């Protein structure tokens, strides 16, 4: 079974989920996971532009071009907070699961929809509500705590806007939990006949592990955020030492969620990469089980390493050592995945369309991000690097270089399925070159700045850090330009792109066995699965 495989009768091909019902109301009330996925796409893309605006503002300020600083310290701190909070809670966390995951998970399983379509729509609106509440803090009572909301700064020393931002994040947490729940049930209950657990695509394994983290960790964040609200309004005294509380306790709570959360960001990305690399190598994925189980292993271990954000917080030396060794264990499943992806290319037949370029970009940047993670996991080394630009560079390499690259690759890859049209490959490649180059120009110098000792979240810095900061700023414009080209390519693709065939990449997973775009219920006849997901024989 190589290329001819469409089961759709052609009379039906022009009736698809996009024209199944028309008008804005049919979108807003849709229960179709594909449409909900696209609504997340539009929302997340908008939020990404806003977060990006703040990022460019931060970088422009730090370049110190011109005699006067561009921002005053308080504005700078607010920019820094909005940038971080928007990108983390509203872009990278929901990006892949809620958008790509919603779109492809049911089709990849051969299902008609997710298990609870109404809940799925509700999750979307809960997300919107959360985003609006959080955004209202940008208008009234702006927040300057940084996305980590450390107490007692957040509870005792800054504006009440924190309550809104925290309430927004709290609300979005529900959306995250409900989506995770929906995915887990869908994966267990709605697989097509013949699709055993060891025949589900790796994207689904990744989304499945992510969902477990979402369900288990998000409530902790929710409680922590509520406690901040309670502390600020009622003065309950859990985190504020003036009221008898413990500020370090907040950090434990916060990282108990937020460390696993970094895997909510990266695991789905790893799923996308697994799909892209097999599809564009035209070869069965190497070590299917190892990749699948390492996702679950990462999800499990991610709960035990939060203390590596707190090596110098005043936590005991012994605790630091224990967290350090457990953190090293996370490095192993991560390395396993890299080796498996690379081995998949071995003796494959590789092509380099835009989605594959993004996957390769992911490999390059994620490897740097992962290796520098080992520096930070080593206690003696982290004492120097903690809260410096080295950490900023590390997490941008993994989160932006990793997750965002995968997200872009995933968009170009599934675009024909979503819209029945192709994006311009040239456009995709140009945006890739700009983003990839710009990314390294922006963030590599930050490793050096960190080694030199420049702390993070600094409005101003010593003169010896100027050159590297200016290089970094120039890089940020390249990234901005790259995303602009990407956006144009996508919009052009939606309206003017060439008509796509059902399986333009010759991939094997189920979503490519239905028409592009798929009909309202995904398949005209329920598919039956007889082999593993990547059977390129």
């Amino acid at each position: 079974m190589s290329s001819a495989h469409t089961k759709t009768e052609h009379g039906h091909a022009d009736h698809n989920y996009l024209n199944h019902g028309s008008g804005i109301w049919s979108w807003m009330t849709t229960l179709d996971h594909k449409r909900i996925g696209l609504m997340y796409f539009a929302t997340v893309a908008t939020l990404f532009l806003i977060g990006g605006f703040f990022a460019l503002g931060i970088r422009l300020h730090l370049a110190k071009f011109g005699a006067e600083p561009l921002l005053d310290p308080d504005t700078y701190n607010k920019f820094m907070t909005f940038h971080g909070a928007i990108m983390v809670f509203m872009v990278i966390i929901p990006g892949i699961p809620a958008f790509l995951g919603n779109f492809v998970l049911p089709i990849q399983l051969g299902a008609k929809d997710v298990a609870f379509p109404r809940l799925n729509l509700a999750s979307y609106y809960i997300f919107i509500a959360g985003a609006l509440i959080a955004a209202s803090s940008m208008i009234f009572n702006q927040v300057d705590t940084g996305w980590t909301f450390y107490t007692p700064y957040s509870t005792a020393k800054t504006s009440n806007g924190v309550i809104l931002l925290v309430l927004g994040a709290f609300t979005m947490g529900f959306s995250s939990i409900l989506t995770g729940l929906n995915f887990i049930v869908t994966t267990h209950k709605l697989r097509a006949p013949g699709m055993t657990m060891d025949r589900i695509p790796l994207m689904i394994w990744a989304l499945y592990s992510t969902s477990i983290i979402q369900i288990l960790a998000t409530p902790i964040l929710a409680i922590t955020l509520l406690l901040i609200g309670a502390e600020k309004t009622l003065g309950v005294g859990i985190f504020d030492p003036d009221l008898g509380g413990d500020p370090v306790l907040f950090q434990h709570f916060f990282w108990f969620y937020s460390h696993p959360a970094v895997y909510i960001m990266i695991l789905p990305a790893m799923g996308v990469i697994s799909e892209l690399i097999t599809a564009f190598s035209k070869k069965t994925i190497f070590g299917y089980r190892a990749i699948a189980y390492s996702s679950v292993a990462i999800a499990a271990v991610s709960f035990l390493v939060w203390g590596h954000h707190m090596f110098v917080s005043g936590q005991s030396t012994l605790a630091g050592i224990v967290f350090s060794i457990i953190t090293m264990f996370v490095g192993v499943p991560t390395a396993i995945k890299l080796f498996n992806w690379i081995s998949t290319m071995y003796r494959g037949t590789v092509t380099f369309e835009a989605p594959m370029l993004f996957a390769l970009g992911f490999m390059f940047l994620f490897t740097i991000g992962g290796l520098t993670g080992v520096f930070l996991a080593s206690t003696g080394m982290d004492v120097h690097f903690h809260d410096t630009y080295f950490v900023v560079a590390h997490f941008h390499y993994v989160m932006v270089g990793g997750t965002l690259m995968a997200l872009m690759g995933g968009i170009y890859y599934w675009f024909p399925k979503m819209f029945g049209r192709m994006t311009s490959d040239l456009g995709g490649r140009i945006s890739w070159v700009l983003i990839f180059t710009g990314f390294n120009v922006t963030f590599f110098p930050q490793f050096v700045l960190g080694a030199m000792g420049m702390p993070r979240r600094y409005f101003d810095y010593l003169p010896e850090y100027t050159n590297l900061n200016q290089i970094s700023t120039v890089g940020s414009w390249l990234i901005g330009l790259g995303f602009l080209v990407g956006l144009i390519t996508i919009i052009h693709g939606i309206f003017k792109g060439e008509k796509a065939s059902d399986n333009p990449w010759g991939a094997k997973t189920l979503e490519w066995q239905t028409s592009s775009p798929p009909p309202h219920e995904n398949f005209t006849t329920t598919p039956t699965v007889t082999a593993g997901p990547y059977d390129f024989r």
Partner: protein
Amino acid sequence: MSWSSLIPATSFMPIQATEIAKEVDLLYAFLIISSLVSFVILIGGMTWFLIKFKRTSLDQKSAYITHNNFAEFLWSFIPLVIMMGIFYWGMVIFEKLRTPPEDIAAEIHVTAEQWAWTYRYANGKEFYSSANDPMIVPAGKATKLILTSKDVIHSFYVPAFRTKQDAVPGKLTQLWFEPKQAGEYIVFCTEYCGTKHSGMMIKIKAIPSEEYAAWYHAEKKGADSPADLGKTLFAQKACASCHSIDGARIVGPTMKGLFGSSRKFADGSQAKADENYLRESILVSSAKIVEGYPPAMPVFQGQLSDEDVANLIEYIKSIK
């Protein structure tokens, strides 16, 4: 001169002002080299495959390979061993960074606030930090800082010493260093603390230890030493009605030789009596009850300022 200086990347590190800084940089150099090697293996290998296995014609077939147990074992096991090594190496350095030596030449209470540091010496000399008033310490000798904060969390970071420690309100944390040579070293605040976070910079000035001794004993800026102030408080708050200072057992444990001794508690646990323990015992004595004593001490939380507590601790430390 060591092999690590061959690695250009280490030249970006700040000057190595302590012995530990050298050790940290050695680990850093090792990490850079091993990362480079790993990077070349991974990304180099990938690039090679990409070139070698690039699709050239439409009907080309890929090999059918699903897994290889031996290779998979190797690439799980080898990284594990390397990472355990890095963990261990980091831990050895970490313990040195965290364990002050027995013999400390200067002990300074450092209090952070938005956006300044105050430092107080054992004899009462006290400074409100500014660029003009660097923190004076002896060169070639160990200095220990006892850190706390008045408002939010701050962090005391000396790049040249490769060390850093948060200053947490309501807690005492500590940091030590031994600058090899006289000189001035910059201190940053690295825990975000609001508007002037990046402006919260001071300098540590290490001077030859004879000069330090002279400076230390020269006219004092503050009034009494913290230990003296603590002694007065000890009397005022009637601590002496329950605690002897000569080793005698009254209602509560004696203060004599208390600091640094190991304590056994009613619930079977144990701890060393360090600054934090004393602080907790003074403010909320019920938190840990020493074995064999009644939980009779009143709660002083809210009645003693952070400075009072620090003074009391200094006094207790002086009762040898």
